[in-house]
């Protein structure tokens, strides 16, 4: 009695195991499947919903691997650096593209664009893509990724709170003016705070707005011989200003406040001013998500000594990995996901307020978009004037507005912002944090071979 049952169980189990194992198919009959590594932004979620349109028109299947930003970066870096070949397409930002292009990890798209026929070229209209964004995604004059969405940074403010205090926000405020407003509107006893600025450690979190403050104060991360300049001059003044402003008029819990926390504080009416990414504009003016949707005011990002580098440049872009075995199909997907046709799809399904912003001039000039996003002009001007090759008062050896375009910056930026977060909570002083940062950054640069 026992033996037959055991035999049946064994056969059943092996049947299940072997049916789950991949059966090799003949090459000629296979449909290509592209694997794309992506972040979980709302725009990417929309892309996953619309992918049926691409699969139907080309017969290529697409497999999405969604990961949080830091994990995505790490996984794709490890995959590419070790030649894993797990992904065909990766979502990358303006930080990675020049570095990975230099390492020959991603494909030069100029060759693929030149092979398009005249109609396809005209349909795609590469000239429509904003030049500054293209510049951020190029290396040695060639384009290596196509932007999926682009952003800069700007000032948001609560018009109701400003009116109640009798204040007016100028279109192009200075940091001194912003601090003045924050001081007048700061009222901790009523759980109201003057300004919300990111304090969460991370080169892409606190590092981004703080770097724009460094730039506009006339400072820089490194001098021309790659020595860090954190603890002296304009850079030190800028960082001290940033930390002090948050401590005096900023949100409590600043050292764990990133984009999301500040957005919550602002939309809940607890903060009067917020300087952050232009892509937040869609979220904070959506009545479904934001109780203060009707009271949001917009202005350019604040400046101090120079407008250069006062607002950042970032784009999430799609790129083809060098180890991909389906480069032509991957390029088809790239051009589909960033085409005018795709933007039209999103507009039809989700409304013009939710189209991927900041990539094409035609989007900004579209009448429907202008109606849905009246602040669009500030965003367009900000993106067009953000130049990663000219973002500082003095000459620097690096490119990038809110980051330094070297592979070591991930570690450096995170380390420095970690130290500054301790200064933010008061467990150390800004001077001590900057002194420690100088030592750590110098060591990292030495290890990486920039100097002995």
């Amino acid at each position: 009695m026992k033996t037959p049952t055991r035999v049946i169980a064994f056969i059943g189990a092996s049947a299940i195991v072997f049916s789950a194992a991949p059966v090799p198919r003949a090459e000629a009959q296979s449909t290509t499947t592209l694997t794309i590594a992506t972040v979980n932004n709302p725009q990417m979620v929309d892309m996953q919903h619309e992918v049926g349109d691409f699969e139907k028109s080309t017969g290529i299947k697409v497999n999405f691997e969604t990961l949080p930003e830091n994990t995505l970066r790490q996984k794709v870096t490890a995959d590419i650096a070790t030649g894993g070949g797990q992904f065909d397409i990766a979502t990358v930002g303006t930080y990675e593209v020049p570095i990975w292009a230099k390492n020959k990890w991603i494909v030069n798209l100029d060759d693929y664009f030149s092979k398009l026929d005249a109609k396809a070229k005209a349909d795609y209209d590469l000239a429509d893509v904003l030049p500054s964004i293209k510049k951020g995604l190029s290396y040695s004059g060639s384009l290596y990724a196509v932007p999926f969405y682009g952003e800069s940074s700007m000032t948001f403010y609560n018009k109701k709170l400003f009116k109640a205090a009798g204040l007016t926000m100028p279109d192009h405020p200075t940091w001194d003016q912003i601090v003045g407003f924050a001081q007048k509107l700061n009222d901790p006893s009523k759980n109201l705070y003057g300004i919300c600025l990111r304090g969460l450690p991370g080169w892409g979190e606190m590092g981004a707005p703080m770097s724009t403050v460094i730039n506009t104060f006339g400072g820089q991360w490194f001098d021309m011989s790659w020595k860090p300049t954190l603890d002296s001059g304009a850079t030190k003044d800028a960082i001290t200003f940033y930390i002090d402003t948050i401590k005096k008029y900023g949100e409590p819990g600043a050292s764990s406040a990133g984009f999301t926390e500040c957005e919550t504080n602002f939309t809940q009416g607890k903060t009067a001013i917020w300087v952050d990414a232009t892509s937040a504009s869609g979220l904070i003016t959506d009545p479904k998500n934001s109780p203060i949707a009707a009271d949001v005011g917009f202005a350019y990002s604040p400046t101090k000594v120079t407008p250069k580098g006062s607002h950042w440049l970032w784009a999430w872009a799609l790129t083809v990995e060098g180890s991909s075995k389906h480069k032509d199909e991957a390029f088809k997907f790239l051009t589909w996901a960033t085409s005018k046709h795709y933007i039209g799809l999103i507009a039809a399904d989700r409304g013009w307020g939710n189209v991927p912003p900041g990539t094409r001039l035609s989007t900004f000039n579209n009448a429907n978009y202008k109606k849905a996003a009246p602040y669009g002009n500030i965003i367009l001007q900000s993106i067009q004037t953000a130049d990663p090759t000219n973002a500082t008062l003095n000459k620097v050896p690096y490119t990038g507005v809110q980051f330094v375009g070297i592979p070591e910056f991930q570690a450096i930026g995170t380390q420095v912002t970690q130290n500054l977060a301790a200064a933010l909570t008061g467990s150390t002083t800004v001077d001590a944090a900057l002194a420690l940062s100088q030592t750590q950054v110098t060591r990292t640069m030495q290890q990486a071979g920039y100097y002995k």
Partner: protein
Amino acid sequence: MTMARSMRMLLIAPAIVYLAALTQAPFILTLFYSFQKWILTSPELGVSFIGFENFSYTLFQDTTFRAAVINLVIITAGIVILSLFFGLCLALLLHRPFPGQGLARSLAIAPFFVMPTVNAVVWKNLLLNPVFGFVSYFTTHMGLPRVDILAQFPKLGIITMAVWQWTPFMMLILLAGLQSVPDDIREAAEVDGANAWEEFRNITFPLLGPFIQLSVLLATIYVLQLFGEIFVATQGGPGSATTTLPYYVYETISQGNDVGTSSAQGVCAVILASIIAAFLLRLLARTFQVSKA
């Protein structure tokens, strides 16, 4: 060696070789990489053998590594000791039968099944957030200042989250231990006139010895690897206040993309964990040896 003995060894050799390779291969590879210099995002620097340089930097020059080790010891000790204390209290309370005992026990066990990252998210945003959180709500309504626990007392915040999660674990083991204490000994003590505290101190607690040993050892092994709460709630900050060794290794490999240094840190972590485990075993054995005598 006889023929039979060597035959036996030969027959089980494949299984042992396979097991050894499977379990030791990752560590051997880590050891191999710890002697190399390999930075993933700088392929132009190549992969080169540099001997003990990674180790000498990690152990003698890296101040953050030292801070990470100290934080690890403080945070682990805090979590294990506090959850042992609260687990013991809960076990004592839930030991006697009362109406609703089954339900109370199930509710008390529930925190252990929450995933660490979920646990951290709820604590960070719902409870500890200084603007929106419940803790701030209560402190401000009692007239106390608005406290940002994760910024001012980050270690306390992390320890609190983890203690909430590990108390049920301690409680379960100690409950089993309490139920193994024979009733006749306790009745005899009652007859002799011992009050509740004396009975606990001289009878129950010593007999719980093996169970406390087991729970402390198991909990220490797992809590040493605590990562989810730190990653979600404080990201090792502010500064390096809550950077423990596992989190520091993660930072080195994922932010710095430095395979060599992170492997060296990993090897040091293994050695440290072995030392802690050996020390703990000896300490526990001694404690309960003395009280038994």
